[in-house]
Every structure is written in structure tokens, then in C-alpha cells.
């Protein structure tokens, strides 16, 4: 009897426990969905052609957010120009060239570190090196370079992982047919790993597009009456604009605030969706 009593209690505990885990997961997931839906509902009324294509008016309380949209576009593009070639090459080095020795371990530790440095510290670094020491000033160039270094670890690790998933037989066969190491990478390994690499690149750039702290002192401007004319100009940007209009502009219409957030989400989550689609399609197609 006692035994079955114990069994009953443990069954009951198991049921309670499993349901508790379900509840916890639900409480984690529901707010995310709720918040996204809420932003869409509150932000949609602000959206119009004027909103995304016009300059702000009346101290940013009316008109559009074109300069912020263009700024985020330029910054993301600038980040891609620097971080993609460097990050992919570094990923190739670690996956295909690096020997298993002390120096490689040091490289790995450096990458882990880069990934962990707080974004505002990147901002300080960008200010110290790019804005002041190299005299780029607060500019798209300085901000893009800062964001690039912050994005590097994401691109490096995903590139490395994508290359490692390519079966070794591919390399062996290619080499046995007389291809050099680079020819093997260029014609065989990298094309096979490409969907993974692209996914990583997009996820890295997505993060860069949404960052505020690294660009605050390196390239972002509170308000500019003109679109930037060169990479050495400062720029408005969506994330910084959201910060500005939600903390420093009194009497800012709430609708415009939600609208701006919605545009940034569209930008960022759109990139996320594209990355996921590429990954899923590649997985479905893969023959190994």
C-alpha cells in the first residue's frame, strides 16, 4: 500500500512539474507574440507613403522618417562592406587552415571576447579610434567600422560552423583530383556552405541594424535637415531615432513613435525571416 502511495505522489509531482514547465514556456513566448501584435496594431495607423518617404517636420513631431530609414540602410550597408569579407575569410581560416595549436586557441578566445564586449564599450572604442584618433569624425564611416567589429564574431562563428558541416569526403575527393586547398574551398567547400554563411551574415547585420549604443557617439545624429551626402557625414538612424523620440522630444505623438518602431521591426525581423528561409531551403535541398 505504502509503495503505491509513493508512486501516486511521484506521478502527481511529475504531472505538476510538466505542467509548470509548460506554463513557464507559455509565459516566455506569449509576451513576445503579444508585443509584436501590439506594435503592429499601434504602429500601422502611422504608416503611409509620406511617413517612409518624407523628411521630418515640426521638430520631428510630424512628417516622415526618411533620413532615419536611409541612415540605417547606409549603416547596415557600410557594416556589410567591412565585416562580410573579413568575417568570412576569418571563418575560412579557422575552419580550413588553422592548426590545432596555442595561436589558434588565442584566436578563439579573442573571438569569444569580441562577442561578449558590451555594445556601449564598442561605442567608446569607436569614439577613441575612429572618430578621434583616425579623425573620421562622427560619421557613417566611423559608425560602420564600429558596428563591423561588433558584428565580426557572429559572422566568423557561423561561417566556421557552416564550413565544418560540409562532409570531409568532399575535401578529400577534391584534393585527390589535384585541386589545391584554395581551389577546394573556392569551388567545393564554400559553395556547399554558402547558405549557412549567408544566414550568419544576415543575422550579424540584423544585429548591427538594430544597435543604438555603438553608434551614439560615433555617427548618429539627433536631427539633420538633409540626407547624408558622403560617408564622412553623420546620419540619423532608426534605433537612435526611437531612443530620441521616446525620451527627449516632449509632446511626441505616440502614434509616430509606434510607427517608427514598426518600421525598425520590419527591417530587422524581415532580415530574420529571410535568413530563416534561406536556411530551411538549403536544409531541404541538401543531399548529404
Amino acid at each position, binding site marked *: 500500500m505504502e509503495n503505491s502511495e509513493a508512486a501516486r505522489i*511521484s506521478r502527481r509531482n511529475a*504531472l505538476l*512539474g*510538466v505542467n509548470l*514547465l*509548460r506554463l*513557464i*514556456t507559455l*509565459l*516566455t513566448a506569449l*509576451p*513576445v507574440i503579444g508585443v509584436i501584435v*501590439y*506594435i503592429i496594431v499601434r504602429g500601422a495607423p502611422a504608416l503611409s507613403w509620406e511617413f517612409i518617404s518624407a523628411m521630418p517636420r515640426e521638430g520631428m513631431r510630424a512628417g516622415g522618417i526618411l533620413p532615419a530609414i536611409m541612415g540605417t540602410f547606409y549603416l547596415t550597408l557600410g557594416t556589410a562592406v567591412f565585416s562580410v569579407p573579413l568575417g568570412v*575569410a*576569418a571563418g*575560412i*581560416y*579557422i575552419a580550413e*587552415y588553422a592548426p590545432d595549436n596555442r*595561436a589558434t586557441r*588565442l*584566436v578563439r*578566445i*579573442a573571438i*569569444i*571576447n*569580441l562577442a*561578449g*564586449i*558590451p*555594445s*556601449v*564599450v564598442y561605442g*567608446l*572604442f569607436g*569614439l*577613441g579610434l575612429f572618430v*578621434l584618433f583616425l579623425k573620421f569624425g562622427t560619421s557613417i564611416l566611423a559608425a560602420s567600422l564600429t558596428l563591423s*567589429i561588433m558584428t*565580426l564574431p557572429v559572422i*566568423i562563428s557561423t561561417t566556421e560552423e557552416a564550413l565544418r558541416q560540409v562532409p570531409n569526403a568532399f575535401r578529400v575527393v577534391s584534393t585527390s583530383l589535384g585541386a589545391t*586547398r584554395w*581551389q577546394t574551398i573556392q569551388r567545393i567547400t564554400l559553395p556547399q556552405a554558402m547558405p549557412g554563411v549567408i544566414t550568419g551574415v544576415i543575422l550579424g547585420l*540584423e544585429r548591427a541594424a*538594430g544597435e543604438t*549604443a555603438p553608434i*551614439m*557617439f560615433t555617427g548618429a545624429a539627433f536631427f539633420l535637415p538633409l540626407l547624408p551626402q558622403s560617408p564622412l557625414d553623420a546620419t540619423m538612424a532608426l*534605433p537612435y531615432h*526611437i*531612443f530620441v523620440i*521616446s*525620451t527627449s522630444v516632449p509632446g511626441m505623438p*505616440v502614434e509616430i513613435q509606434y510607427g517608427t518602431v514598426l518600421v*525598425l*521591426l520590419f527591417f*530587422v525581423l524581415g532580415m*530574420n525571416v529571410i535568413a*530563416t528561409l534561406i536556411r530551411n531551403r538549403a536544409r531541404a535541398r541538401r543531399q548529404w
Partner: protein
Amino acid sequence: METAKGERWITWIIKISGYSSILFVSLILFFLAREGFPALGEVPLKDLFGARWYPIEGYFGIWPLIFGSVLVTVGALLIGIPFGIGTAVYLSELAPAWIKNILKPIIEILAGLPSVVLGFLGIQLAAPFFRQFLNLPTGLTAFTGAVLLGFIAIPTIVSISEDALNTVPSTYRHGALALGANHWQTIWGVTVPAARSGLLTAVMLGVGRSIGETMAVMMVTGNAPVLPRSLNALFLPARTMTATIASEMGEVATGSMHYHVLFFIGIVLFGISLAVNLTASSLALRSRKRAERLLS
């Protein structure tokens, strides 16, 4: 022979790119030190670690800021650990495939939400809610910051914990079930303990994420750099190290004492993230080695 020469160039470029991370970490350290260490000469060490942060009158005590960072991080972990690890356990041990296919993208969306968006939602929704619900004079408190940070840390904790749980060999689970343990007992008695160093890594990286988070905390914690006088501190405004840098750097004169101290805070943050990440990666390495030993 053309190819051999071209290939040598390419190999060099790839090698240099590979080592670039070391260069960048050194550059970051160098420029933080260059701008931050002068603070040590300008502000006596006793004052630098003093209890008062009031730059306009020359008080540069960073204790209240360190305390603010620790306070919101601890608060964030109180939310992030149970919810993050709980979700990971559910995802890896219990959830049917179709639920996983819905949940994982949701967690990814959470991971992808820019922190300024979370800060905005904190101002618009969380702060007014907590002010009414907890009957506080203001909703912009350390508590609101901690809740947001918890959500920011959750995706990190979930994904690393889930990886850790997935590397536990399924023979462990089968063994426990065969011995008559039920699902729940298997999870807490076998799977979770077997994955513990991976889970610890997840928590460490969650700590790193929370301590370094800037925009969301800056927007909702109310910006009051004060040392706590009672346990109530969690429900009062606070100010973290990151928020201090972000909100004051724009207004200081380059090369001033205040400027140097802000960079010095950057050095402190760099040191903390270095320690947290090295611990996390050595934990991860240890668990991988143990897993290899057990599986061989």
C-alpha cells in the same frame, strides 16, 4: 605556376583575417586604456571608488553605478534563469515537434528585438503597469529594468541550455526510464544534472548579456545613481555603468576628467565581460571534455 603564386596571396589574406580578432581585441583594450587610465591620475583612487556620482560637482564615485549594474543583473537572473532554463528543458525534453517549430522562431524573434525597442516598450507599457500594479511613485525603477533584462537574457540562456541538454546521450534517459523513473524524475534526476556545466555556461553568458545591456536599461531604470539605503532599492530608480556611459558621453568635453572616468568605467565593463566569457568558455570546454570521456 600562376595559380601557386595567386594561392600564396590568398592564403596570406585568409591567415591575416583569421588573426584579425586578436588585433581588434588588443586595439579595443589599447584605446580604452589610452582614454581611461588618465582618470586614475586625475581622480584619487579613494574618490573613484567613492559612494557619490555627481560629475557636475566633481564627484566621480563609481560604486553606485557598479551597484546599479549588479542590482538589475541579479534581478534579471531571478527571471531569466527559471524562465530560460525552464523553456529550454521543455523544448528539449518534452515539447512535440510541432510546438518546437512554433516556439523556436518566437525565441529567435525575442533574440532579434533591438534593445531600444524593448526600452521603448518598457517606457510605454511596463513602467506604467508596474507603477500602478505595485503602487510606486514611478515605474522607472531597477525592477522594471530587471524584468526587461530578464527577457533580453532569456534567448541566450535558452539556446545554450538547449544545446547542453541535447548533448546529453539519450542512453542516459533510456536507462533512467528503464529503471522505472518517470519523465519528470528522469529530467531532474538525470538529464539536467548531466548537462549542469552547460547550463552554468548558459547562465554565465546570460550574466554577460545583462551586465552589458545598455539602451533598454538606460531608458527604464530612471537614471538615479544612488547607493541603496534599504532593501527597497529594487523598486527605486537606479543607474547602471552602461547607462551612465551612454547618457553622459554625448555631453562631456573630449579629454576632460569626466570623459576619462567614463572610459575608465568602460575598462571595468571590459574586465567584467572578459572574466564572465572566459569562465563560460572554460566551463563549456570542461563539459565537452567530460562528455567525450563518458561517450568513449
